[in-house]
């Protein structure tokens, strides 16, 4: 699953800009707002009492950057982080990750650091990692200082923003920042990039490659 970049051909023959597709994974302790961030980014919605993740673990959203369309294929943990049971498949071929913590909960920041280490161990060495201090709307109950997180992010080469899925603050921005940092050339598929296999579909078995699988 990697950089399936290519040039999209419109039916009328007109050529669009480049389309790049990236796998982005979310990580972080339960209840820090991983699903809420995605829901805000993809659908512009927010639910105060978002259920634990059920049934929504594969979302896509596109961002336009100059002449390039960046399509994110976003993987949510589906709760498998709870008992440390995330499968290697989750990290496989991921080109970007958002590690989320809750600014009102110091433990979740500690866990975020563990997730960053896990990514450095399991994921592609070229992965773009962003740290999101979520629930910024609850800044009056803050227990993780902005500077502390910023210092940690700088030391580890991470993008960093405080976000609020509730107010939408910095939600689009953090995805945009990731999109800007991702390599857009076809060759740059990273170490664990696409094996150039094909996805199986019911209707178009003759689709020989998935190099350009924009739907």
């Amino acid at each position, binding site marked *: 699953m990697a950089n399936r970049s290519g040039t999209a051909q419109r039916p009328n023959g007109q050529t669009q800009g480049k389309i790049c597709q990236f796998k982005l994974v979310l990580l972080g302790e339960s209840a820090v707002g991983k699903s809420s961030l995605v829901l805000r980014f993809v659908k512009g919605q927010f639910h105060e009492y978002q259920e634990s993740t059920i*049934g929504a673990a594969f979302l896509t959203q596109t961002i336009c950057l100059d002449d390039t369309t960046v399509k994110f294929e976003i993987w949510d943990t589906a709760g498998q982080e709870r008992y440390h049971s995330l499968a*290697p498949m989750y990290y496989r071929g991921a080109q970007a990750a958002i590690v989320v913590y809750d600014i009102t909960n110091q433990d979740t920041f500690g866990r975020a650091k563990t997730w960053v280490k896990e990514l450095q161990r399991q994921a592609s060495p070229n992965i773009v990692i962003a740290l999101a201090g979520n629930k910024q709307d609850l800044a009056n109950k803050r227990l993780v200082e902005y500077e502390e997180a910023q210092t940690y992010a700088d030391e580890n080469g991470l993008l960093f923003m405080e976000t609020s899925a509730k107010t939408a603050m910095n939600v689009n921005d953090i995805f945009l920042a990731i999109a800007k940092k991702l390599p857009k050339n076809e060759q740059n598929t990273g170490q664990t990039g696409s094996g150039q296999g*094909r996805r*199986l579909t019911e209707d178009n*078995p003759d689709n020989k490659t998935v190099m350009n699988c924009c739907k």
Partner: protein
Amino acid sequence: MDEEYDAIVLGTGLKECILSGMLSVSGKKVLHVDRNKYYGGESASICPLEELFSKFGAPAPDESYGRGRDWNVDLIPKFLMANGSLVKLLIHTGVTRYLEFKSVEGSYVYKAGKIAKVPVDQKEALASDLMGLFEKRRFRNFLIYVQDFVEEDPKTWKDFDPVTQNMTALYDKFGLDKNTQDFTGHALALYRNDEYLNHPAVETIKRIKLYSDSLARYGKSPYLYPMYGLGELPQGFARLSAIYGGTYMLDKPIDEIIFGEGGRVTGVRSGNEIAKCKQVYCDPTYVRDRVRKKGQVIRCICLLDHPIPNTKDALSTQIIIPQKQVGRHSDIYVSLVSYTHQVAAKGWFIAMVSTTIETDNPEAEIQSGLALLGPIRQKFVSISDYYEPTDDGVQSQLFISQSYDATTHFETTCLDVLDIFKRGTGEEFDFTKIKHELGDEEQ
């Protein structure tokens, strides 16, 4: 863990993961546990390479093997039939979107010490060097018959009743000789032994059709193989289960399955924790006292730094050695995958030779398979017992899967899973329960 579940699934092998996914999708509250700290049980792919070497007690691999993390070595070799049940399950459940596949490049059959491409269409039949000139024509007529055959339309049966008449009778109708019968039954219909000859011909016709329909789907061969190894399959179905609310715990020892009144399961104990449940689904390794040994399978993993000779340098292939060619009762299977599937470091190949054990010198039994491979850099032999449950589980509500057999594909795997699901829930799996709109938010 101290909660109550509809079902607890033990072991994260492929069968258990498919079951877990199907149960969660059907609205059941599922707890899925594995004593190992990795997914896949016996159907895992081993990574890194160092772990494979130490698992078999071999000294660590030298640097010629490249980076250990680039390897994902399957313990059980299988391919997916492109038009088979597992592909259908993957597509209907949406699990296919977590995976990428490649077509297996070659499909060969062994005859008189040599290997030849398996002929499947009329053109190939006429070009094949497996048969003489007249036999080729007879085989072509047979293929046309199978191709035109429609089970529901007796007109296509052409004065032959495939339900009451057996396969030997159909071979005789077309005058096919023993050699042709051999590769038809074993390399096209993929039977492991010759019992099928006495069964209704329709069964074999359907299997040959599955082969040719699978071939028609992606070309080259009827087989598919997932990038990064077969171990991706259980992980994909586990994810499906989790998306539908399944709870996952790895690295959790299981100390006891608890039974209550009438010998029905009531829960599972791990240390001091007890999870209550109405049903347990598991693989044979969790219930040694409720399974019986049915046979043994030998599997030999061979690391090669070259493709298999005489396969046109295919980066993936399957070779079937029909039993009679080497004086046996069950076929020998050779499969090859390589770096192109992200299961080996650049330039490396993984061959697996396997068969059902018939003698007390199993390694000698696979010799004719090993001899096809050329120089072997490293060899790991494993012998596994093949278990089946002693009862159907309906009374105890403890449903046990069968061990993975020696077949080269997943058809029997899926049959077992669908059968267990039916016994466990009293109904066939309803694919319409999968809410695509929840799982798939494609723009």
